[in-house]
C-alpha cells in the first residue's frame, strides 16, 4: 500500500480526502462530495466554463493548458456525440499522483467528469487507467457502480433530466497512449499511435465526435474549484497558475512521497524542507523537475525557482507532470541519461522516423559511451541527433526524449568527457552493477 506523507506546508485541496475512506460513496458524501456537481446543474454550462477559466487551473498532464479554455473550444452544436475522456494512463517516469487519486478519492474523478460533461454538453465519459493499475480500476469501477445506484450517473442524473454515462477501462502497457490522440486510438481498439493534428480533439476526437481530454488530476481538481469558487482557488497559486498540484518527490530524497503544494512553491524548499533533503546527507547534484521528459536542473538553477509552469519555462525546463526526481552527487549522469533514453526508445511507437530512429540511435550511442567506448565526436553527435528530433515528430514523445538528453549533455559535458577513451565510469563502485539495457 503506497505510504501517505504529510507536511505542515501542504495546502490540501485535491488530497484532503486521502486516507479518509472516501472511495466509499457514503464517506465521500459526508466529506462534502457531489455538492459541486449539484451547483453546476443549477448554474449551467456557460457559468462552469467561466469559473474554470477564472480559476487559472492548467492541465496537470504536463502541457499546462488552461482547462477552461480547452472546454470552451468544444462546439456547442455538433453532428456527432461529444465525449469526456479522463487520462489516467499515468506513465511518465517519476509520476505517481493519479495512483493516489484513484486509490483514495475515485469519486472526485467521477464528479469532475460529470461536471466536464455538463460544461460541454457531453453525455458520456470514459475513465482510462493504465493497464498496470488493475486494482485501481476495480476501486474506480466500484465507485462508478455506487454512483449509478444513487442516480448520480445514468439517464437522469440527480433528477435533473440530464443523461450522463461513465465507462472505465485500462490500457495494456504503453507510455505513448498517454498522448491524447493515441489514447483515443487505444480506446477505439487500435494500436496507440498518434493522430495528425489538426483537427484537434475538441472538434474531431473519440469516434469522430468533439472530445475533451483531461488528465485525471485536472478532473479531480474540478469539483474543488467549483466548491471553493474560482477566485479562492486562483488565489492559492501564482499569477496565471491557479491552485495547488500534487508533487511526487522521488529518488535520492530523505522523505519521498506525494505532497500537495501551492503552485509556485520553492523547489529548493521542496527538496530540503518538505523532502528532508538529499538522502544520507549527500549533496544535490541535479533535479529532474517534472517527470523524466523535463530538462534536468542544476543546484544553482533552483535557488529562487518557484514551481509553476511559467517559472519552469523561463528556467529552460518544464513543470510537466509534477514528478520531482532528486539526484545525489554519487550518481553517474551518463548512466541516468542512458536509462532515460532507454525508456523512450522502448516506448517510441515507431510511427514517425525521427522518434523511432532517433531514440534508438541515442540509446545505442549512450550505451557504447557508458561502456567506455565513446569517442569525442559522440558528445556532439548525441546533441545533434537530439536537436534534429525536436519539433519533427507527430506527437511530443520525440521532444520528450530529446529535451532531457540535450540538457544532460549541455550541463554535464565534463562528466561525458570523463567517460571517453576507454576510461571506466568514474562512479562505478564495487557491488554496484553496471546498467544492463533491456
Amino acid at each position: 500500500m503506497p505510504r501517505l506523507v504529510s507536511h505542515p506546508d501542504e495546502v490540501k485541496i485535491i488530497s484532503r480526502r486521502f486516507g479518509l475512506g472516501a472511495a466509499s460513496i457514503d464517506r465521500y458524501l459526508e466529506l462534502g462530495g457531489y455538492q459541486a456537481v449539484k451547483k453546476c446543474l443549477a448554474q449551467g454550462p456557460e457559468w462552469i466554463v467561466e469559473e474554470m477559466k477564472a480559476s487559472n487551473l492548467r492541465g496537470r498532464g504536463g502541457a499546462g493548458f488552461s482547462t477552461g479554455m480547452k472546454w470552451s473550444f468544444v462546439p456547442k452544436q455538433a453532428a456527432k456525440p461529444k465525449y469526456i475522456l479522463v487520462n489516467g494512463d499515468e506513465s511518465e517516469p517519476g509520476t505517481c499522483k493519479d495512483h493516489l487519486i484513484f486509490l483514495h478519492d475515485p469519486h472526485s474523478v467521477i464528479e469532475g467528469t460529470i461536471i466536464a460533461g455538463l460544461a460541454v454538453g457531453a453525455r458520456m465519459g470514459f475513465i482510462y487507467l493504465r493497464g498496470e493499475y488493475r486494482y485501481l480500476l476495480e476501486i474506480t469501477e466500484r465507485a462508478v457502480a455506487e454512483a449509478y445506484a444513487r442516480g448520480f450517473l445514468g439517464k437522469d442524473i440527480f433528477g435533473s433530466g440530464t443523461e450522463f454515462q461513465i465507462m472505465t477501462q485500462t490500457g495494456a502497457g504503453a507510455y505513448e497512449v498517454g498522448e491524447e490522440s493515441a489514447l483515443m486510438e487505444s480506446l477505439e481498439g487500435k494500436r496507440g499511435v498518434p493522430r495528425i493534428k489538426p483537427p484537434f480533439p475538441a472538434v474531431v476526437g473519440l469516434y469522430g465526435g468533439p472530445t475533451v481530454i483531461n488528465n485525471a488530476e485536472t478532473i479531480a481538481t474540478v469539483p474543488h474549484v467549483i466548491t471553493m469558487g474560482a477566485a479562492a482557488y486562483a488565489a492559492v497559486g501564482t499569477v496565471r497558475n491557479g491552485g495547488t498540484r500534487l508533487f511526487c518527490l522521488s529518488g535520492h530524497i530523505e522523505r519521498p512521497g506525494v505532497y500537495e503544494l501551492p503552485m509556485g512553491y520553492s523547489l529548493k524548499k521542496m527538496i530540503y524542507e518538505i523532502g528532508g533533503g538529499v538522502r544520507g546527507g549527500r549533496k544535490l547534484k541535479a533535479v529532474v523537475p517534472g517527470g523524466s521528459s523535463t530538462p534536468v536542473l542544476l543546484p544553482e538553477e533552483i535557488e529562487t525557482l518557484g514551481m509553476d509552469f511559467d517559472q519552469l519555462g523561463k528556467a529552460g525546463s518544464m513543470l510537466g507532470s509534477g514528478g520531482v526526481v532528486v539526484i545525489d552527487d554519487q550518481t553517474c549522469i551518463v548512466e541516468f541519461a542512458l536509462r532515460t533514453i532507454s525508456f523512450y526508445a522502448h516506448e517510441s511507437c515507431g510511427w514517425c522516423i525521427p522518434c523511432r530512429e532517433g531514440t534508438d540511435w541515442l540509446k545505442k550511442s549512450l550505451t557504447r559511451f557508458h561502456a567506455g567506448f565513446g569517442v569525442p565526436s559522440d558528445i556532439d553527435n548525441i546533441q545533434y541527433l537530439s536537436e534534429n528530433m525536436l519539433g519533427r515528430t507527430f506527437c511530443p514523445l520525440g521532444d520528450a526524449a530529446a529535451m532531457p538528453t540535450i540538457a544532460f549533455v549541455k550541463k554535464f559535458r565534463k562528466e561525458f568527457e570523463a567517460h571517453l577513451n576507454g576510461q571506466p565510469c568514474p562512479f562505478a563502485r564495487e557491488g554496484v552493477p553496471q546498467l544492463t539495457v533491456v
Partner: protein
Amino acid sequence: MSENAKSASSETPSVFSPELAARFDALIEKYPARRSALIPMLLYAQDEVGYLSDAVVAEIARRIGITELEVRNVATYYSMLRFKPAGKYNIQVCTNISCMLRGAYDLYERFQEELGIGHKGVTADGLFSLEEVECIGACCWAPAIQVNYDFHDELKPDLVPGILAAYAQRVEDRARDPFREKGKNA
C-alpha cells in the same frame, strides 16, 4: 451484430469460461463501437488463459467481428500482452529512474539469482517468471515491483526470498483447499 459474432457467442464452443464469455458479450455491446472492447478483452482473456493463444486470438476476432490479423496487429503493440505463457506469478521489476536511484538493479539482480532466470524467463516448475519493466507508477515508494497485478513497494534485496516464499505458499494452500482463492491471480 454481425452473423459471425452471433455464432461465436451462442454456438461455437468457447475457450473462455461461461462467466468470461458472458462478460465479453456485455462488454462488446456497452461501447459506442464494438471494437473498443478489444483491449480490455485481450487483458481479461490473458488473465484467464495465461497468454494470448491462437484460439484466444481467433475467438476474440470472431466475437468482435474483425480479422485475427487485426487482433494481432493491436495486441503486439501493448507490452503487457504476451503470446507465450508466463509463470503463474509474473514478477515485474521496475528499473526506471526513480526506482534505479533507490537500488532497483540490486533488487532485480537478487530476483535473477533467487529464481535462476533472466528477463522474460520462466522457472522450470512454471511458478514464476521475471521481467524488467518500465515505470509502473510507484515512484515515491521505490523500488517497486508488481507480481501479476499486486504492487510491492519500498523493497530491499533482502526481502526477495520472503516475497517468493509467500507466493509459493499460496499455491500450496490452494492445493490443499482448491476453493479458497478461487478467481484470484488467474
